[in-house]
């Protein structure tokens, strides 16, 4: 606790991230694209390196000490990944995948294929990332399912007015906890209550939520939760799916191969216990260990404090953008920092987001430009693309000032 009290200054966090101290053309890196992928503290890099240097062997296979060590590290990473989101039974309820996308595909392939049939209804929202949309579109096409969408209202929030009607006959509800475009934090626990009352299960996409806010699956009340390591200081190539043990037990395997079986005969196989039933082949071992180190790093600081820091910085950023550019800028997302994450999408009159991002890059300011893998939402916003600056614990007011300065330069370059 004493240690975490000392660490309230983002400058201290920055020091932990080697890439943030690299200067390009004498300028510091202003990294405002953590919603796409975050950077890595030394702790994560060191954990992975140390694993490779001292402990690597395949997991769940060898009887020698090295393989036992690797297995123990891998399995304790699983428990860490579960505890981080308040999983009641972390050793059994956490499945490692390669990213959030694969986690969601696992649900659609395994649970969806088994439990949904022609005419069944899935309820989604208009702000889903393609990762929590395309798998359901694919399944809908295969099975003849009906998809319904909870609309986004003029305040950039989900319009729940007709929720009960939308949920009528639904078997599954798929909703993001935090929008990667709007930053909106959705009332998933409320939606989950309503869904459960109608007998539907709830898939929560936590890719943009788990890295930034305290998360407890029991409080949220969802049945599945997906998140991804590379947006929370961890490496790429590791994702997580959590689901209640009883649900996982009733689900058929996802991919077939080694690891996921108890027995194989020429005429059939017996699947493994959960969670291994869903992990075919050699898993991403070093990546799981890296993720566990990232989780430890985040927990040492405290998710409450990370949230608080990001809220303050979001308030500052929104104020600066509106203050400096007024009518020329449109921010897509709730103005109230308590209702949103630090993913800030905007457009600037007369300048395409692609050009904004390009000019900003000159000043070492990295932001994302594009449709953010949320094309239905983009259509709703009546734009093909937005610019997005997204914050994390290592960002500070200097980063926002650099963003504003570079945006000013962009407007001058493109002034008509």
């Amino acid at each position: 606790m004493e240690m975490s009290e000392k660490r309230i200054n983002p400058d201290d966090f920055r020091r932990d991230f080697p890439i943030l101290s690299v200067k390009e053309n004498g300028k510091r890196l202003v990294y405002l694209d953590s919603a796409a992928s975050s950077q890595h503290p030394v702790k994560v890099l060191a954990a992975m390196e140390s694993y490779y240097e001292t402990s690597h062997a395949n997991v769940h296979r060898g009887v020698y000490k090295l393989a036992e060590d690797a297995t123990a590290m891998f399995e304790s990473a699983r428990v860490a990944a579960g505890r981080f989101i308040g999983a009641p039974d972390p050793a059994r309820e956490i499945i490692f995948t390669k990213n959030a996308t694969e986690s969601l595909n696992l649900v659609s392939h395994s649970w969806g294929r088994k439990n949904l049939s022609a005419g069944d209804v899935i309820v989604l929202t208009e702000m889903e990332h393609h990762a929590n949309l395309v798998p359901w579109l694919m399944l809908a096409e295969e099975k003849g399912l009906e998809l319904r969408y909870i609309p986004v209202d003029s305040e950039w929030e989900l319009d729940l007015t007709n929720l009960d009607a939308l949920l009528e006959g639904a078997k599954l509800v798929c909703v993001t906890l935090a929008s990667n475009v709007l930053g909106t934090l959705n009332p998933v626990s409320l939606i989950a209550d309503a869904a459960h009352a109608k007998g539907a299960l709830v898939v929560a996409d936590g890719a943009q939520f788990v890295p930034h806010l305290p998360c407890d699956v029991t409080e949220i009340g969802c049945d599945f939760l997906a998140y991804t390591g590379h947006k929370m200081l961890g490496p790429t190539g590791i994702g997580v799916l959590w689901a209640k043990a009883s649900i996982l037990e009733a689900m058929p395997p996802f991919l077939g191969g080694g690891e996921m079986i108890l027995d194989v005969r020429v005429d059939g196989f017996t699947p493994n216990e959960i969670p291994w039933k869903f992990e075919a082949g050699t898993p991403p071992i070093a990546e799981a260990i890296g993720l566990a180190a990232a989780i430890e790093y985040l927990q040492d600081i405290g998710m409450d404090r990370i949230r608080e820091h990001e809220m303050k910085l979001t308030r500052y950023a929104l104020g600066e953008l509106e203050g400096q550019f007024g009518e020329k800028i449109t921010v897509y997302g709730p103005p109230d920092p308590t209702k949103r994450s630090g993913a800030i999408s905007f457009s600037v009159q007369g300048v395409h987001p692609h050009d904004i991002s390009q000019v900003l890059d000159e000043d070492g300011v990295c932001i994302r430009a594009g449709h953010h893998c949320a094309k239905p939402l983009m259509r709703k916003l009546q734009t093909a693309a937005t610019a997005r600056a997204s914050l994390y614990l290592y960002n500070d007011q200097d980063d926002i000032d650099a963003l504003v300065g570079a945006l000013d330069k962009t407007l001058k370059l493109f002034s008509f």
Partner: protein
Amino acid sequence: MPGLEDLYREIILDHYRSPRNKGELPSPPAVKAEGFNPLCGDEIIVYLIVSSGGVVEDIKISGQGCSISQSSASMMSSSVKGKATSEARDLVKTFKRLMSIHEHEIAATGDSASGIATTSASAAYIHDDEADEEAVDLSKLGDLAALQGVVKFPVRIKCATLSWNTLLQALDEAEAST
């Protein structure tokens, strides 16, 4: 590191601010081809009327996109209007050589979650390839030569070539229907 002035030449900004041949044509008689850039959501629609004699009689461009895709489309439309389709095709070839890439390299930047950053490795790849190409006669290209700076920004090449690929599609369609 290449500077912004290599990319945003005044003539490019001019075409972006006042695009030539912007609009739509009734289809039919015009053929209509659509091109998308999945990376940034740019969209170009080319309306083309080719005479029975094989001349590009009229062309209009609609859609939306960044300064590079829009200015490239604008310049493309002015440079092919009134030309024989064979000349237009030659111009596409010349322009794409200026961009010094082949189709498979254009396809390499897809719908990824990784933002628009590129690596110096991909830049080097494109430059290596450039060595194999014959020199492009810039004088033939007129205003279009201003776009050569785009090559230094590999992720933007696809923006510059979008309207040209869409034009090819429209030409194919127009010629198939005559």
